[in-house]
């Protein structure tokens, strides 16, 4: 079966600074794959390259067999990206925001309405969906953005720190939504510096440190390999 994502010897430089240093991994279709690492480890840069926002300085990335540089448009039709701490248009209502974004995924009005309905179900904001985004709490905005990211049922959803800055209750709801979507067959690539969250959500994880891949495997494999109780301990031991 063709891999959902192939990251091959990926390098990304910002001037003289190397943010991602020859990392490589594959993600299987339908898999939930987690990137773990502290701030500045290269997680977001890797996700941005896969989402076609940044071009690699070296190596390559393919999404369902399509090159992220040469076939960026085709890749964009298959992926959906949720940036960390992203916002929505503050003067639009939640519903108008979803309608606005749905227009990019379908020319057919009926189909667009279905996308919006699906997004409303994911966001689960009730009557507040009619209110301006400006009036939303951080948790509500994040749910709206997650709904936007998943409404087109992308083949690959790239979620950067999906629960960053959220309270426990909202984090649990978001994690639940991700699990539900993964069960429907969407491949999910997520990043977090919350290793326990990644352990809970992901089937396999990649540990990054200073732009380098230091460990890759299922949470169980990694814990067993490093004789650790959880991924936090794995990370500490693997980095030594």
């Amino acid at each position: 079966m063709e891999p959902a994502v192939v990251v091959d010897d990926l390098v990304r430089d910002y001037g003289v600074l190397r943010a991602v240093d020859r990392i490589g991994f594959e993600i299987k279709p339908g898999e939930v794959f987690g990137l773990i690492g502290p701030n500045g480890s290269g997680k977001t840069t890797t996700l941005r390259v896969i989402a076609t926002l940044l071009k690699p300085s070296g190596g390559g990335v393919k999404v369902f067999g399509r090159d992220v540089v040469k076939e960026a448009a085709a890749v964009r039709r298959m992926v959906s990206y949720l940036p960390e701490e992203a916002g929505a248009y503050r003067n639009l209502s939640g519903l108008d925001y979803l309608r606005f974004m749905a227009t990019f995924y379908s020319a057919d009005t009926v189909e667009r309405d279905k996308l919006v309905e699906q997004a409303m179900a994911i966001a689960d904001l009730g009557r507040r969906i009619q209110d301006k985004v400006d009036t939303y709490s951080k948790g509500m905005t994040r749910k709206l953005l997650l709904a936007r990211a998943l409404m087109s049922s992308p083949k690959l959803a790239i979620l950067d720190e999906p629960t960053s800055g959220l309270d426990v209750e909202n984090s649990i709801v978001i994690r639940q939504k991700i699990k539900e979507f993964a069960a429907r067959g969407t491949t999910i690539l997520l990043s977090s510096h919350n290793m326990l969250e990644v352990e809970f959500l992901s089937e396999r994880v990649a540990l990054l440190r200073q732009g380098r891949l230091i460990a890759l495997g299922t949470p169980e494999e990694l814990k067993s390999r490093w004789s650790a109780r959880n991924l936090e301990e794995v990370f500490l031991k693997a980095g030594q």
Partner: protein
Amino acid sequence: MRIIANLVWKEVRELLTIRTLLPFIAVLVIFLFVGRALRGERAKAQAPQPVMVVVPDSSHFADTIINRLKEENFSVTRTTAAKEQAQKQAQKEGFSLLLVLPESVDYRIDRFQPVVIEAYTILKGFSFTQTIRSGKVKSVFTRINSELTEYHLKRLLPDIPAENIENPVQTGEFVILRDRVAAGSPEAVQGMAMAQTFIIPLILLMVLLYASQTLAASIGQEKENKTLETLLTVPINRVSIVIGKMLGAVVVAVVFSLVFMLALGYYTTAFAEGVPSRTPDMSVAVQLGLTLSPEAIFLLSVTLFLAIVTALALATLLALLSEDARGAQAALTPLMMLCLLPYFFTMFFNIQTLSLPLKILLFLIPFSYPFLIPQAILFGNYPLIIGGLLYMTIFCAAAIFIAARFFSSDLVLTTRLRFRRRR
């Protein structure tokens, strides 16, 4: 098209909010209020004004003055009271003006002796109405003086037309423009030309400045809120995003500028009403070929269009270089300078007499041409028209190309990327 329409709709929804509209509504209200108040004051000034005239003895000249005052819509009360008593009475009875004629006016006039009429303006405050009233009284005396001069000249030199003595040198003014000659003053012709060639670029300047600021704010906000990252990963051509943003900014700028111009128009016409019309005879303009033909209007429209698109492409680039909305506004300063410089240059200087370095600078700024080309059209300066349009087209195409390339590359995200925040 659907995608661009959707992007424009979003831009307009985001930019036309109560918060952004409020300053314009405030300006609109102020202009409308002041305009209305001025019209009210003018109506008051036009109403019959009470004036008291002290005429100590029977006089034909006094009768003439009173008749002229009545013709100027003054309501005249004639009295023979002494000056001091008349002053008190006028103040007490609410008169705004008191005229005191000396004794034996007719006798003095017949003997060419000066007649001093004392005019007492009773101030009840400083207002626009008071200025208009004073002006009307002065015009009455100017008219009377003119009539008296004519009367004296007829008595002394009955065979010579008074006009020949009053104005021994009379000018017949003509203006030559290219191969055409027409009777008229250069000031009047200049006024007509300015009205035709300066007003439209001036409105354009307003639209241009506002549209650029709106666009920069929009891009700045997208960067700040990270909505741009989301937008850049949706399956649409990135050039559509740029076009959508530009069109949205133009729509908003046109709405704001129209509202502003309407309010300003209402305000300025309140001043102009009642002032003797100085509109020149349009036949002079027609004789000199100073009217804009449909072809000229087309050329002017192309110039304005190119200027707007160039400004927006440059605003896009500058905004993309900044980190947030505030930075985007600040980044626009060079563009603002480029837009305003030609306006001041062409308003205060004659392009022909500018020094060579300044002339080159003016020609290098693409926003000079909306001010230069209309005049060039009227004066038939074809090298400037063709050269200007060619330069603007090349500059505009280059600006769009660079903006589109920038937007399509990852520079849009990395230009201001802070390494310390990267993961």
